[in-house]
């Protein structure tokens, strides 16, 4: 943001040139974001070089890069990082598979699927917090409706057979369910819009050439959808990696930290263990990695603003 601001300011002569006027329009928003995002991030970086907080009796102390050394050697941070990656991959892969399948289904049904498409959309408006609590309620061991229904139709012998949220080996996948439920619609929506922009003649001629079903999908449809899917994957990947509410209200990161992703680990380091220095160091590294991934993804695959 800053380089742009600086270069525009030099050209001020008579009246307002287009570039300067544009800058004037953009500046308030840019300055607000700098104050509300830039400043906290700067403070985060400074905090990460200290121990204790400014409110401690002994005050806080400059410790240089000690917090960072701890970040990279602490097995708990590494485990949380790994869980974040697994969680993100699970959520995004499930959403892509489901979202693509449902979008193709709606597309095959044509315009008359409008009502179903609308009904499919509603979870997008529900708060992640509500989704998390609701699924916790539905998955609660022994007494949850999901296991009850599964056992009634004979898939489970006993309602207590799957301990969704208390089995450490399973919980990371269980906490992903509300996230998947909440935003598969988004994936469907994007892919459906992509499908509608494919010229029907193209599909027709491919059909006449003998391409059917999976082959049509693999050779014609998926390559054409690639840009749409790439954007959807970036957005959902970034959102899943920073998921917080959904997991916190389901398990609080437990049992035994088995569902503690980086966002939760940072929150706990800050609030439960009252260690702002470490929390800031982990956040800074998390932030840097996320920004690097997002920047690479956005500049190489997405390129917003350049398509027109």
């Amino acid at each position, binding site marked *: 943001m800053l380089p742009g601001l600086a270069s525009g300011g030099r050209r001020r002569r008579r009246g307002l040139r287009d570039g300067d006027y544009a800058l004037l329009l953009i500046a308030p928003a840019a300055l607000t974001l700098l104050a509300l995002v830039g400043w906290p991030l700067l403070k*985060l970086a400074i905090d990460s070089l200290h121990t204790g907080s400014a409110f401690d009796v002994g005050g806080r102390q400059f410790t240089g890069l000690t917090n960072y050394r701890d970040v990279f050697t602490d097995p708990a941070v590494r485990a949380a990082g790994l869980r974040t990656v697994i969680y993100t991959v699970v959520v995004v892969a499930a959403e892509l598979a489901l979202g693509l399948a449902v979008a193709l289904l709606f597309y095959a049904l044509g315009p008359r699927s409008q009502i179903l498409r609308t009904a499919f959309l509603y979870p997008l408006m529900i708060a992640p917090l509500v989704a998390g609590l609701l699924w916790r309620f539905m998955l609660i061991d022994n007494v949850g409706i999901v296991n009850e229904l599964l056992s009634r139709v004979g898939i489970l012998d006993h309602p207590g057979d799957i301990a969704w949220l208390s089995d450490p080996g399973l919980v990371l996948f269980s906490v992903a369910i509300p996230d998947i439920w909440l935003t598969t619609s988004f994936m469907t929506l*994007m892919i459906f819009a992509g499908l509608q922009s494919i010229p029907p003649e193209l599909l027709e001629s491919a059909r006449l050439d003998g391409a059917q079903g999976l082959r049509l999908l693999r050779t014609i449809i998926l390559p054409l959808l690639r840009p749409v899917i790439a954007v959807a994957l970036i957005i959902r990947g970034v959102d899943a990696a920073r998921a917080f509410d959904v997991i916190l209200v389901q398990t609080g990161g437990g049992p035994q930290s088995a569902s503690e992703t980086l966002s939760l680990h940072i929150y706990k380091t800050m609030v439960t263990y009252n260690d702002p220095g470490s929390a800031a160091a982990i956040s800074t590294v998390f932030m840097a990695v996320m*920004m690097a991934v997002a920047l690479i993804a956005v500049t190489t695959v997405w390129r917003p603003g350049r398509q027109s």
Partner: protein
Amino acid sequence: MTRRPYAMRRLRRSLLWFLAIAVVAVYAFPFLYLLLTSLKPATDAIAVPPTVLPHRLTLDNYITAVNRQGVRASFVNSVTTATLATAISLALAIPAAWGITRYRTRAGRIMLAGSLLVRMAPAVAIGVPLVGILGAVHLIDTPTGLALAQTTVALPLSIWLLASFFEAVPREIEEAALVDGCSRPRALVSVILPVVGGGTAVTAIFAFLASWNEFLFALLLTSLKAQTTPLAIANLQSQFGLDWGPMTALAALYSLPAVVLTLLLQRRIVAGLSLGAVKG
């Protein structure tokens, strides 16, 4: 020969419809279950084994939830905070988005990319230092402080959405207004903005919902006074754990406006979702 393929196609079509309806039904189940549970007597809501349908319909859970201490205040706080965050975001995003799309300067492109990056930042990395910053200016536990924090989400989102809507405005409209003697700011407010009225409304809805549904900043930056409804929902505990009956009632009350809005404004919302790619 022609009859069999036709019959086959009809069968295939019926199967597809059946499949689509089944998917939507499974997808709709959780929210229906939330509504049904909220209408059960509180003891039935936590009965073992659970049932899908209530034996008896009652609004007791709603009455309990609304009468809990802090719940009604939390609704006021949620509305205040979301309104503030929406107003701040739109006031800043309308000129910024117009500046970006109309003039296509380097600064504009940087701003657009910057908003996207800000949207992708982990909220916890911004929220944690904001605790100290807002504390220093005495805005902790106030709707204003929380609204400012949520502006970090709602503003980039609004810029991104509005920029997409402004794309569709032909330059000639502004030029005509300028020829008629409008100043440029005047042309923006009274000529261009009405043209994208629908888009602005969608943007306002999304900014409002971003704040309405936000939890992490509310958790970090408010305690008792400025507590929003998501916190009130999460805090509905009894000595036995979460108080599911009243909790589902409060969650239903709180989600219903958003769900109804989606169904009513479905087409516009779809446009917004695909343009702004907003869920977060």
